[in-house]
C-alpha cells in the first residue's frame, strides 16, 4: 500500500517532496517515474555541507524550486526523502541513476557521493523513512558510483 502510494505521488509531473518541488524535465526520462531525476535533484540540492548552489536541474531542463535547502533538521528530512525513494527504486532506476551520475560535473558527482554518505550515517526521525534500512543499498550504490570515478 505504502509502495503504491509513493508511486502515485511520483507519477505526477510535478513532485512535491518535503517542501522541495521537483519539476519533471521536458525530455521524458526512460523510467515511468523519473525517479532518477528526483533522486539526483535531492542528492545534488540536499544538505551536503560540501556543496552549495549550482543546481543540477538547471543544466538538465528542469527546476528544483521551493524552499532552499537549509542545514539542520529540514536538510536532514530532505535526505530522508531519498531514503524513502530507495524503497521503491527498481534495478532499472538505479541503472539510470548511475548513468545520469556519469554525466554530472565533478563537483556535483562529489555532492551526490557526499550526500549518500551523510544519508548512511543518519539516525531515524519520527514519521520519516528509516535510513538505517537502506544502508546496504547505499553502500552498494556508493561502490558503483565510485567505480565510475575509476576508484577501487
Amino acid at each position, binding site marked *: 500500500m505504502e509502495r503504491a502510494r509513493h508511486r502515485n505521488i511520483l507519477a505526477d509531473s510535478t513532485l512535491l517532496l518535503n517542501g522541495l518541488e521537483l519539476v519533471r524535465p521536458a525530455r521524458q526520462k526512460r523510467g515511468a517515474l523519473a525517479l532518477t531525476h528526483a533522486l539526483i535533484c535531492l542528492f545534488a540540492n540536499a544538505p551536503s555541507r*560540501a556543496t552549495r548552489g549550482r543546481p543540477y536541474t538547471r543544466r538538465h531542463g528542469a527546476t528544483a524550486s521551493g524552499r532552499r535547502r537549509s542545514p539542520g533538521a529540514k536538510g536532514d528530512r530532505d535526505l530522508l526523502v531519498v531514503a524513502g525513494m530507495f524503497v521503491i527504486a527498481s534495478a532499472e532506476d538505479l541503472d539510470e541513476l548511475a548513468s545520469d551520475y556519469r554525466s554530472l560535473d565533478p563537483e556535483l558527482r562529489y555532492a551526490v557521493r557526499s550526500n549518500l*554518505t551523510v544519508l548512511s*550515517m543518519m539516525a531515524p526521525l519520527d514519521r520519516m523513512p528509516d535510513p538505517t534500512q537502506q*544502508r546496504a543499498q*547505499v*553502500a552498494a550504490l*556508493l*561502490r558503483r558510483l565510485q567505480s565510475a570515478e575509476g576508484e577501487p
Partner: protein
Amino acid sequence: MIDAMNRRAIKIKQRAALRRWEYRQRHYARGVWFRLRRVLADAKEAFLLDGPDGDRLIAAGFASERVGSELAPPKRLVFAPREAILELPSAHPVAVRLSPELLSASCVALVRFA
C-alpha cells in the same frame, strides 16, 4: 521598526560568521570528513575496542583504514570479520553514525557489508 531591522541584521551577521567558520574548518579538514563517512558507509556494524584488542586485530593481519590516521587524535578503523571481532573481550557494539561515542573512540572494528 528600526529595532526589528537591527535584530535581523545581527542574526544575518551571526549566520554569516558561523558559515565562514564552517567553510574555514572544512578547508582545513581537506575532505577528511567525507573520507571518514565513506569508510563508515561500507560498515554494516561497528564495535568499539580498547587499545590491546585493537592491537590484536592489527597483529592478526587486518589493516587500519588510512583516514583514521588523518584525524586528531588518530583513530584506528579496522575492517574484520564479525566472528573475529566478537572474540575480543572489549568489543562493544555501537551504531554506525557520527555519534560522540564513535568519534571519541580510539579504536573501532567494522564489519563490511557482504
